[in-house]
């Protein structure tokens, strides 16, 4: 079932949404990402019908639901803290919505979800006695049993122990495939989005910065905000000139400038290659720089290099680190492909 949001605006004083336009196709798994305070939760609440919009329309399968109360929208929600009814058993939690959906053939739906999510042994327990992962599965079953057109997931994995996240990602993926519902997931964890979603959008300051496939958002950000958010740390203001871009005294080879005049270039930290001497290679950009900071992150190191007035950040593995033995103020060469330079 599809979801269409047209020109939606919400004004809650502290939080505002401006001119949100978004279309989710039937069966999509869509990730809504963005920094804290961007308005992601406000958008979810506007979709559920808990926050009044100022202007704009929301359609589910072409049916306008803008002014319907929450109970008539056919949009389910799974909260970060799961919000299970503490006074009801697991089975009563799952069955709760069926009372209000007489048209759903209840028996099978409950049984299918219970077995799909492995909840059979928990049916007569109460939520307070369940682990986080179990609670989450109950919340998913409860939301899906009434066959919502759209299911909203508010940071579904963030409250879980990291060791269980992988397992629950698999559950989520299976559920999405089995239910055929359209999933809209809020997350601030890029790897979650990468492993689950097909499409995504980045929200900042109450507006959508970019909408597209996961691949597009991660590999081809169209705005500086998105580039910064998805971890393109090396973001520089430049002047484009045919096949080069100049900024901060550094000349980048960019293949072919997609625009003229001023703009931005960005290079992923892991696309930078460090070496002791200049590399004789097909890499078109190569600069000499000075190490200005070294940060260990367990599995990898982040190295800052000063090249003229710019500071580049490179990511290297511990292995490469011990081979290269970078030290503060040591000179180092920095190379990257022209095709690794993203232009905005």
């Amino acid at each position, binding site marked *: 079932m599809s979801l269409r949001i047209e020109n939606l605006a919400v004004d809650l004083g502290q939080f505002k949404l401006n001119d949100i336009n978004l279309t989710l196709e039937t069966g999509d798994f869509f990730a809504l990402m963005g920094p804290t305070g961007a308005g992601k939760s406000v958008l979810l609440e506007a979709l*559920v019908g808990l926050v009044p919009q100022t202007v704009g329309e929301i359609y589910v399968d072409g049916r306008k639901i803008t002014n319907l109360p929450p*109970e008539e929208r056919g949009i389910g929600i799974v*909260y970060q803290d799961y919000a299970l009814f*503490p006074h009801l058993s697991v089975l009563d939690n799952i069955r709760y919505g069926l009372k209000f959906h007489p048209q759903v053939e209840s028996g099978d739906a409950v049984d299918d979800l219970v077995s799909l999510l492995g909840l059979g042994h928990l049916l007569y327990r109460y939520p307070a006695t369940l682990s986080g992962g179990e609670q989450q599965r109950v919340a998913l079953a409860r939301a899906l049993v009434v066959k919502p057109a759209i299911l909203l997931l508010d940071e579904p994995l963030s409250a879980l122990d990291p060791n269980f996240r992988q397992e629950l990602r698999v559950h989520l993926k299976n559920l999405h495939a089995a239910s055929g519902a359209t999933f809209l997931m809020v997350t601030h964890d890029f790897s979650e989005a990468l492993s689950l979603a097909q499409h995504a959008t980045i929200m900042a300051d109450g507006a959508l910065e970019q909408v597209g496939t996961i691949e597009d958002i991660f590999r081809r950000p169209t705005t500086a905000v998105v580039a910064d958010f998805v971890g393109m740390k090396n973001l520089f203001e430049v002047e484009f000139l045919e096949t080069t871009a100049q900024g901060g005294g550094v000349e980048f080879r960019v293949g072919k400038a997609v625009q003229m005049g001023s703009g931005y270039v960005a290079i992923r930290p892991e696309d930078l290659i460090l070496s002791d001497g200049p590399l004789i290679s097909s890499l078109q950009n190569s600069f000499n720089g000075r190490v200005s900071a070294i940060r260990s992150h367990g599995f990898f190191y982040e190295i800052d290099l000063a090249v003229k007035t710019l500071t580049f950040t490179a990511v290297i593995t511990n292995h490469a680190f011990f081979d290269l033995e970078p030290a503060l103020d040591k000179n180092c060469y920095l190379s990257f492909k022209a095709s690794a330079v993203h232009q905005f």
Partner: protein
Amino acid sequence: MRKDSFLWFSLLSSFVVLLFVTVPLLRMLTAPSFSALYETICDPQVYRSIWLSLYTGISAAAICFVFGTPLAYLLARSEFRGKKIVEAIVDLPIVIPHPVVGIALLGMVGKNFWLGRMMHELGLRIVGSPAGIIMVMTFVGLPFYLQAAKEGFASVSPRLEYVSRSLGASMFSTVINVTFPLAWRSILSGIIMCCARAISEFGAVVIIAYHPMIAPVLMFERFQSFGLRYSQPVAVWLIIVCLLLFISLRMVGGSPRKPGVGSRV
């Protein structure tokens, strides 16, 4: 651990406070002899007054429950301009001197106010009637019920209500199926506090209705006519009956639906 003079000072003054509250009550409860207690309860005037106190007090609590619950819910859930003022208004009955409460209510139902005239024409007698006593008790008990019910509702996460509505339940169904069962313990505490406060009232009731006599009025009369020794047994009986009432309310209403409720408290 070495001696901490601050801790000792705190413990000592706490002990003094607790003694100040408990000693007079224990002394009073143990003062009357068993024969005095037995004689007292055989007195029809005594048990009629205790029965009247119970019945008017429970009625007042029931009225607070019916009319106060929606207000308590609104105060717990919504933010609006003037909320502080509304909260101050519903707390007024605590701080208004008790005879003033009686005088104010009497002024409202008197014949030189339209409400009083209307009631009079309908044949509804307030002055000197159980209806008047219930009115006074409702007035003084209301803040205690509202406070407890408000806290009960506030302790239920609004997310549970949102989820319920997203599952197809209307606002009304949601309150009945989710909010109410979860807030029930606080609501029951509020009902008990309200009922206790209603039964304890004397100054306001005595203005509206000296007769029929509720237990506190009877105690006052016995104290004035016969002295301390004759008022104590009535007090003991009233306290015993109220304790029994509240304990049984707690036991009957403690867990309204499922055993699971208890586990979250």
